[in-house]
């Protein structure tokens, strides 16, 4: 069951991820990205992080991506024009990326014993209670700092997007 669920949502995530990169129209990319986020939320649930799964959908899919879609619609962004100028990125980037991926996969295989298995329900430390307790005790300072950050971001966004008063 675990394997089936994992495979289903991993495949959805990867396919949507590829779609994000391949689609020329930003709105298709955005929809695909929502797909990635949704399937990742399910994977989070499988990993026992139920609060994070909900937060993933609410924050990422429900707020961040809505902003993206909103901006795409607002700017009426069309499909991008094909005129590449960076040979470097394509010639060097893709092989590098493959090397990177290979290295990461190799490390992941080597560093964790084959016995390390993920079973749904084996770890239940991700409830809202657990996350809240950690956030408001041990991680209070980062939490507050991040709140300040988001406040600054709000102000920054308002200032940037404001109509010029002239």
């Amino acid at each position, binding site marked *: 069951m675990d394997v089936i669920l994992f495979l289903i949502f991993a495949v959805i995530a990867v396919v949507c991820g590829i779609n994000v990169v391949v689609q020329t129209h930003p709105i298709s990319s955005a929809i695909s990205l929502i797909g990635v986020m949704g399937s990742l939320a399910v994977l989070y649930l499988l990993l026992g992080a139920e609060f994070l799964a909900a937060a993933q959908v609410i924050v990422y899919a429900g707020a961040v991506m809505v902003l993206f879609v909103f901006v795409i619609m607002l700017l009426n962004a069309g499909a991008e024009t094909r005129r590449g100028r*960076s040979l*470097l*990125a394509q010639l060097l*980037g893709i092989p*590098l990326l493959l*090397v990177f991926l290979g*290295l990461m996969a190799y*490390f992941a295989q*080597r560093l964790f014993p084959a016995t390390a298995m993920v079973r749904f329900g084996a770890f239940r430390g991700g409830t809202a209670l657990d996350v809240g307790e950690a956030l408001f005790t041990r991680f209070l300072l980062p939490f507050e700092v991040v709140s300040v950050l988001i406040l600054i971001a709000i102000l920054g966004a308002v200032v940037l997007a404001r109509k010029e008063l002239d």
Partner: protein
Amino acid sequence: MQLWLIPVFPLTGFLLNGIFGRRWSKAVIHTIAVGSVLLSFAWVLKTLAGLGDLSAAHTEQYFTWIQSGILHVGMDFTVDRLTAVMLLVVTGVGLVIHIYSIGYMAHEGGYQRFFAYMNLFMFFMLILVLAANYLVMFVGWEGVGLCSYLLIGFYFDKKFATNAGNKAFIVNRIGDFGFSLALFLIVVHFGTLDFGAVFTAAGGKSEGTLTAIALLLLVGACGKSAQLPLYVWLPDAMAGPTPVSALIHAATMVTAGVYMVARSAAIFTRAPAAMEAVAIVGVATAFFAATIGMLQNDIKKVFAYSTVSQLGYMFLGAGVGAFSAGIYHLVTHAFFKALLFLASGSVIHALSGEQDLRNMGGLGKKIPWTFATMLCAGVAIAGVPPFAGFYSKDAILAAANNHAPWMYWVGVITAGMTAFYVFRAIFMAFLGEYRGKGHPHESPAVMLVPLVILGALSLVGGYLFRVPGYLAPLFPLAVESHDISPMLISVAFGLGGIALAWVFYVVRPGLPDQLAATFSGLYKLVYNKYFVDEIYGAVVVTPVVSGSREVLWKGVDVAVIDGAVNGAGNRARGIGGVLKLLQSGNIRSYATWVLLGGVVLLFVMGVMGGLR
């Protein structure tokens, strides 16, 4: 007892007026400013009433300010009898002067700025007085210096005012430098800055250490209290509004040095050489400033030199071991000198800005209240019994007589000169014929009431507030001498000074000019304040300025620093010229480089981590 409320009231006033004052009417501004000082004064009274007889110091600790190694500095306040006296003087006289300012500043611009600065000054002065350790005191010390600078330069559109402010600030730096060196020495030798701990431990330290600390403290005190040789800023400080002169440059801030010396009595008494230095500085300043004061024509300059001279008296008192007499004189001086300034402010107000004594005269009939109150201050400062100045000056002179007779005699002569120059100013301003233009008018009640209050205090303050007796637990009283002849002599000199002024400026007004012609060399020397400013200019300022310009700027700055910076810049530009090729302006190629770095890093980590 919530001591912190005492300084916080004026701070609140400062913040309110400083931030919102621009939009408020004058009534709101001065209500807040005076109200905050009134609250502060009331809280002082309540606190002192609640603390009983204060036979032991009451200390409150609020929070740790600095914790570094062994050094622990807390934001602590303390109240003992010395502090109590200072608190009453600062808030009481401060309150009266704030009220006076309502009238004096009514027609000036920058109303809210003035009151905001005044409140800020009160805040820092109260911090200074309440401090329970040297560092907190230093905060107040620097703070009042800042407010002094701001208020001297209050009329910042006038060049001389900003120059005077700068001068005060820079000269004070010299003193503060000494003070901070003293603090460093204290930290080195005592490991703490708390008054209690330092004074308890002072007994076990060597005399050399204590003398060094005491002398450095004296340098600090000289700067703040305008003693020789750092007194030059105070006469110029009269560029500020008159209430500022009264509050900061007569009654409170300039006496901070005396307060600091008295507070550090435990150190000074164990360093006889430093004590001697204090006494000599004091008596020399007293005499020296009095001689200058005799020939000044600007009414505020006269009182400025008088302040310097009277501060010298206080130092004399402290230096000869009579700390309580010094503080006593501080209190009475706060009354009559504040009064002198406020009354002269009233005169200036009446004459719409005229400050030159030669353009006054005959004002006694036109502004009788001012005249009467000024007369009260005059008799008080001249040491006529039984008015305020008599008690405190007598206490100092008696102590000086016990210590060294020559100091007593210099003090007595100075007392005569004091009486002379004060009454010279009074006679020139109020008696005779009116020599100016314009139509003098009496000041409004809001200015006269403070004058009357201070006048009454100048008359009876010395008798009412027996400071030495109150401070006896802190500073043991000197042996009571039954010989009253020194007292009689000083009174005689005082009266003689008044009489001489009467003769010179009322009976035979031509006499001073004849004398000046006779002793023209001496006259010019004194009239030009012994050319001290010019000497300082030639000896200190010019070499520093030209040295900075020729050596530091054209030599060090251009050749060494600019050379190094430009050289580095040129190298960077050269390297950048090569690296520029990487900056294609294409974000994706940048990302590729980042990726390359990531892959290399990952690879290295794998190899180093033993994953092969």
